């Protein structure tokens, strides 16, 4: 999934200004790596494709935030938005088939949640016209809205994510099953973390009349939640069944004494590499030249992050902004201060 997702990002988001996204037609055919079902979807829902790309970006940024300072830090080759390491890739290109690890599970889940999140946001912003009730209610257009309002756009976001992201995960192999499960886990986590807000507006503002609506949380909350799920992800084993359409692979919990995974839990069936050394086959970039924290005893500490190879220390003088006055947006007036830092990087 991530492979084409990132292609999508590249073709849609990188190099384009947001303002031009709405006006410039998106050519679905020019996005590489779409399966026919996705292509069809893209053509039908072309106006929400920028949000889909935005959603993947939100997911990846959140992934990088959650895994900052760890050996695997959701690395992408280029700065921000580029191709993930093959740890996430499905191996369309010349890479070997990436491993079905926890990390892969996390990325699928967070990206799928990100898509649902961004589409719901776009619907609230009005940048897409196909959200909301009229597509589902019968009767003349607009009547459903006038009679009984619209159902939640949240369901629409989830639907888009499901239709689009799961479209390519339809093979009967274990990896597809795992991706489908993790994608769904991401979306379920999003809908689980929605919260209800209410407003009373009856006689003199009393709660005689109360209206409630679902509100999306800050995406960081989803990230935290998914991180918990990453830590408690369930290891599975692959089982093969003979069915009428051929061999079908399914997943079964590896350990019977643990609770089986629910639809909110992440699943994986291959162990993660230690990500210490670069290895294109596993998708590890290694931790060489990564900045580490000398005082920490945690995973971001120099001992653990550098995998015992030791670290280099250099002194840096940085010009920093200080004594700043902030406006709520876009303007900071600061003085410049020079501070000296010790920077530790892994050998």
């Amino acid at each position, binding site marked *: 999934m991530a492979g084409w997702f990132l292609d999508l990002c590249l073709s849609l988001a990188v190099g384009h200004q947001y303002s031009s996204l709405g006006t410039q037609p998106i050519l679905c055919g020019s996005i590489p790596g779409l399966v026919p079902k996705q292509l069809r979807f893209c053509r039908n829902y072309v106006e929400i494709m920028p949000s889909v790309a935005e959603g993947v970006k939100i997911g990846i940024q959140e992934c990088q*935030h959650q895994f900052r300072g760890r050996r695997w830090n959701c690395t992408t080759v280029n700065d921000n938005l580029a191709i993930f390491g093959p740890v996430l890739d499905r191996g369309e290109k010349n890479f070997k088939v990436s491993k079905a690890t926890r990390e892969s599970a996390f990325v699928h889940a967070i990206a799928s949640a990100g898509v649902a999140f961004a589409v719901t946001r776009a619907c609230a912003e*009005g940048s897409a016209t196909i959200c909301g009730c009229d597509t589902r209610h019968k009767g003349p257009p607009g009547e459903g809205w006038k009679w*009984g309002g619209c159902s939640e756009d949240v369901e629409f976001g989830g639907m888009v994510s499901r239709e689009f992201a799961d479209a390519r995960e339809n093979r009967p192999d274990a990896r597809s099953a795992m991706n489908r499960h993790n994608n769904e886990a991401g979306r379920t986590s999003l809908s689980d973390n929605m919260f209800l807000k209410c*407003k009373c507006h009856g006689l003199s503002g009393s709660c005689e009349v109360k209206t409630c609506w679902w509100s999306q949380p800050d995406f*960081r909350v989803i990230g935290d939640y998914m991180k918990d799920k990453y830590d408690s992800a369930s290891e599975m084993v692959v089982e093969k069944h003979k069915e009428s359409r051929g061999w079908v692979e399914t997943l079964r919990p590896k350990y019977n004494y643990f609770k089986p995974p629910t639809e909110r839990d992440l699943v994986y069936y291959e162990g993660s590499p230690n990500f210490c050394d670069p290895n294109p086959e596993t998708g590890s970039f290694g931790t060489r030249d990564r900045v580490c924290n000398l005082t920490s005893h945690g995973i971001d500490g120099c001992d653990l992050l550098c995998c015992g190879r030791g670290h280099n220390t250099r002194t840096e003088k940085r010009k920093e902004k200080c004594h700043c006055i902030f406006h*709520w*947006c*876009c303007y900071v007036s600061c003085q410049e201060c020079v501070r000296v830092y010790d920077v530790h990087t892994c050998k």
Partner: protein
Amino acid sequence: MAGAIIENMSTKKLVIVGVALLLCQAFTFMVGGLIAPSPTTAVPYLATKCVDTIKHRQESKWFMPWGPNQCHKIRSFDEATAKMIEANNIVFAVHIPLPNKEMSSWFQFMLVILQFDIAFKMYNQIEDGAMVTIDVGLAYRDDTISEWTEMAHSFEQRKLSCNFTTAKTYENEGRYYECDLMPFMEVGSVSHKYYLLNMRLPVNERKKVNVGIGEIKDIRLVSIHQNGGFTQVWFAMKTFLTPSILIIMIWYWRRITLMSRPPVLLEKVILALGISMTFINIPVEWFSISFNWTWMLLFGDIRQGIFYSMLLSFWIIFCGEHLMETQFFEALVLGRGELKMCVSCVPAIQIFPERPTNKSQDQTERNRFSVYWKQVGPIVFGSFCLFIFDMCERGVQLTNPFYSIWASDVGTELAMAFIIVAGICACLYFLFLCFMVFQVFRNISGKRTSLPAMSKARRLHYEGLIFRFKFLMLVTLICAAMTVIFFIISQVNEGHWHWGEHTVQVNSAFFTGIYGMWNLYVFAIMFLYAPSHKRYGDEQSSGQCITGDAGANSGEDIQLTTTITHVDGPTEIYKMTGKEAQE
């Protein structure tokens, strides 16, 4: 008030009336639950960040978030920082409704709630008591191509009450504060198809405007309006209920005027209750479909307020009147030692002509509304407080839809003061009411023991009195309990229940059901407590009369009570009975 239909009705007829009313009640619930959609809809919006690129901007420039002629948008403020766009040049635009939809006058009202997404930054935190100043304009148009027409423009201040639940460390930078919802706008009629909100948060360091409000990431709005389907069902109900209550009211008042005595206080109060119910019922809202009457919301509040205070006054006066009758009886009995006399079966009726002064004193006292100032006072004062509060909020909103009394500290204190005073009045009222009900019950139980010893006429009179009172108590309690129960259900419930393939709109059922219930309540009171015209000849029903300890009817009873309630001009019947009794 005496000799009401309820006492003279046969059990069978009473049961029939009861079942009919129950069926109507069930029907009103079903109309709301099965036909109507949910009462209101909330639509969340995310404000689009537009850039006002024109240096010297014109006054009438409106920024559209989407569609043709949309504004120059930025995705995030990082982009704005990079492009050196200042805060003053950013316009938050929200188009109501979302694309491909249009508003309708069936929506009746629209209120908008404001919420800020503010990210935590170590060096740009929200200061204590930070106020945000919003320069907001509201415009409308009725087709998708014409120019926007300004509807309102205002500088509004809102208090940011946000808290950050996690630790304020670098680690947690970028998390959002949890901010309270802020009331933003309220319009009392939705007569246009499209609305556009443009908001600016101008910064002025010298005047400390919009300084220290943290790093705003997004502005969210939620618009709430009544659903068109619910409005239609509601109007239909009102249109149907108005003539029903009006007819029974006219019928009731005709019965009263047909009597030879002037109406007593309680009868007048029941009429007033009917009038206030009709006042709520009259579907003037139909006009709001074609006229832009923004005061409809306020008018609705006033109508409801009048009905509620009328209902509360009715309960007090009903209790009071029955209390006086029972007290009057007690005074009579104890003062004259009638209890003993009763044992020797002295016909009670004999004493009545002997004490016209007593009676007339009591009579005048009971018929004066001023006796109840102590109990009705809190109702009037409390509803007056709420009226002032409502005028301050919704009244001012007629001129400035963005006004909110809760926005300023003084306003909040004032509003709280009004509400607290109204609350105290309500408590006081209920204390009075409970005390009165308790007194009536004490008198009733005291009288119960002496009932068998009384003459038939008196016994029937008091039994009738007790029955009337108990019946109303029971019905009122049931109605009040239903209201409370359904209120709680509608509060805790998510709004609709799935029942097989049917969806039951619990909230709509609550509104239509409770509204129908109080209508039926008023209907039943006017019908059952109207004076009965049954005479001597109608005694066939007295044998099978009503329930348990309830009063049987008889000619004597009517005349007896007539004598009590009316002294100065004894009717022919009175004279007859008096004669008869003396015989």
